């Protein structure tokens, strides 16, 4: 009997150890590649044990520290504003929906819920944002489309309000003469720190990682966030290499100008590094948050 669970534990540790390694090792390769010299990458490929280390890729980044710094700034700005606004409007919409005494409560809940079932798709969304609201190449283009708020989060917060805040508490405050808005920010919000932290974390990650809005709504290089720079760089390299035969010498010169292979990895590194560094501190909440989301 004892033997069997020992065997089982041994299998578990082996399988999970391998899987965990598979989850970390690619990042190690990325980081090592960014510190490899261009010649050793050409000779041995991306490798865990490069023949020659070099800081050249990071020198190149330093040369462009103004653009990259700007991109970092935009990403941080969008992440902070996006998360804050998102938390505010999500909780403000979810709270009234959790009040069973409010008239038309079910209708409004359905209005939110329906957005989870059906959507207009990319083309109408793009046309409405660019033709009617004209958000192309503005910070709004990074902030608004798709990311700011979603039906799922609203229903999650609503469920939290419904299950964890006793209606008697609201009634008591009301009898004491507190208005609805005061009740919301003096009583409801302080009680909902756990759910707000979880949603805020997931929203912040979504904004930090977002490259899609940058790809669709931003063409001005001054407005690029860090993920957009990474995306556009791949596109440029593809464009030049696939057209190099037709364009001849000019394209060849342009390719030589392009960031070298190690620089690409270095930019990817500075794109993920903040997350990898911060992860040990928030991993507990992240793992917990996954199960909160799963239970409707």
């Amino acid at each position, binding site marked *: 009997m004892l033997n069997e669970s020992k065997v089982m534990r041994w299998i578990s540790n082996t399988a999970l150890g391998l899987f965990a390694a598979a989850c970390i090792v690619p990042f190690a390769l*990325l980081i090592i590649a960014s510190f490899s010299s261009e010649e050793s990458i050409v000779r041995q490929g991306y490798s865990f044990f490069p023949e020659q280390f070099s800081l050249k890729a990071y020198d190149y980044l330093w040369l462009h520290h103004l653009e990259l710094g700007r991109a970092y700034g935009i990403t941080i700005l969008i992440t902070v504003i996006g998360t804050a606004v998102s938390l505010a409007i999500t909780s403000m919409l979810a709270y*009234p929906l959790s009040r069973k005494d409010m008239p038309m409560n079910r209708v409004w809940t359905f209005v939110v819920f329906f957005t989870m079932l*059906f959507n207009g*798709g990319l083309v109408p969304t793009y046309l409405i944002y660019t033709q009617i609201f004209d958000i192309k190449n503005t910070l709004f283009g990074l902030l608004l489309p798709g990311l*700011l708020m979603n039906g799922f989060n609203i229903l999650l917060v609503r469920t939290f309000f419904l299950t964890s805040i006793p209606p008697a508490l609201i009634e008591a405050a009301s009898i004491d003469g507190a208005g609805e808005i005061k009740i919301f920010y003096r009583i409801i919000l302080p009680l909902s720190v756990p759910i707000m932290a979880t949603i805020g974390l997931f929203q912040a*990650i979504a904004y930090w990682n977002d*490259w*899609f809005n940058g790809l669709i709504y931003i063409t001005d290089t001054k407005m690029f966030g860090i993920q957009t720079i990474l995306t556009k760089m791949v596109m440029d390299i593809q464009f030049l290499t696939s057209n190099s035969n037709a364009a001849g010498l000019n394209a060849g010169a342009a390719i030589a100008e392009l960031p070298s292979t190690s620089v690409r990895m270095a930019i990817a590194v500075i794109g993920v590094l903040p997350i990898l560094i911060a992860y040990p501190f928030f991993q507990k909440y992240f793992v917990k948050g996954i199960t909160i989301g799963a239970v409707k």
Partner: protein
Amino acid sequence: MRQLSYNVKNKKFKYLPLYLLMIPGLIYLLINNYLPMFGMFIAFKNINFTKGIFGSDWVGFQNFKYLFQTSDAFIITRNTILYNAAFIILGTIFAIAFAILLNEIKKKVLSRFYQSVIVLPHLISFVVIGYLAYAGLSLETGFMNKTILPFLGIDPISWYTEPKYWPFILTIIHLWKSIGFNCIIFLASIISIDTEYYEAATLDGASKWAQIRSITIPLITPVIVMLTLLGIGRIFYSDFGLFYQVPMNAGFISDTTSVIDTYVYKGLMVSGDMGMASAAGVYQSIVGFILVLGANLIVRKVSKDNALF
């Protein structure tokens, strides 16, 4: 009670502050979700920017006719459904297997460590994952071609021009990114199983395998059913990042890497074929909607508590 009777008149105003709270969120939903739904009419127009969205001519179902006359419509539908089917089946099997294994590890610190590490890929943007894949698969400098294949004595493979490898590559990357996340969900439901079942089974001499088969699996079946049906409801949608960033837009492999979402994107942003793109988008929205409703109907039949509505 007494209070209510003389407050009837004020009742209309009583809820006014609550409505005020709702306004910003509702405006956002209007702009971001509802206006695009009404905007779907553009699929029935021949969009001409000089005439504007509203001024363009109506063309009925012509855009759809063109779309379904091409072989693209079949290819993107097939790819979208087959990839999602593979993701649902393999993803569920692996996630459950890892959740069961993870549950066997009784050392809390170790278990926590595994949990944190295996959800790490879920946290990384697909841009960076595209770079990681490139580091592995690049023809001249990739880890596969330079280290692993030579070690196995196989000639280098030009991954980005060979369509036949991509179903495997994309499936592996998807699994790598998502298994940890789903594993945590299954683990939560396994942990909630009453330990008495296992104690009783152990007393009766049931083996671990027998316990997994006849206690763990049956008791987490509701979660499995729910997640699978939700997946089926979204089988017409795919993760744009996976299919856009990882294949790096390589033309040779589009037969096995293009899905409805990438097709709509390309029509809109690259080739400027607005008619086809919007027709494909409407096709996706409508069929997707029907599938969500259908999946939910089945969930309701199976277990009402797990239904979305």
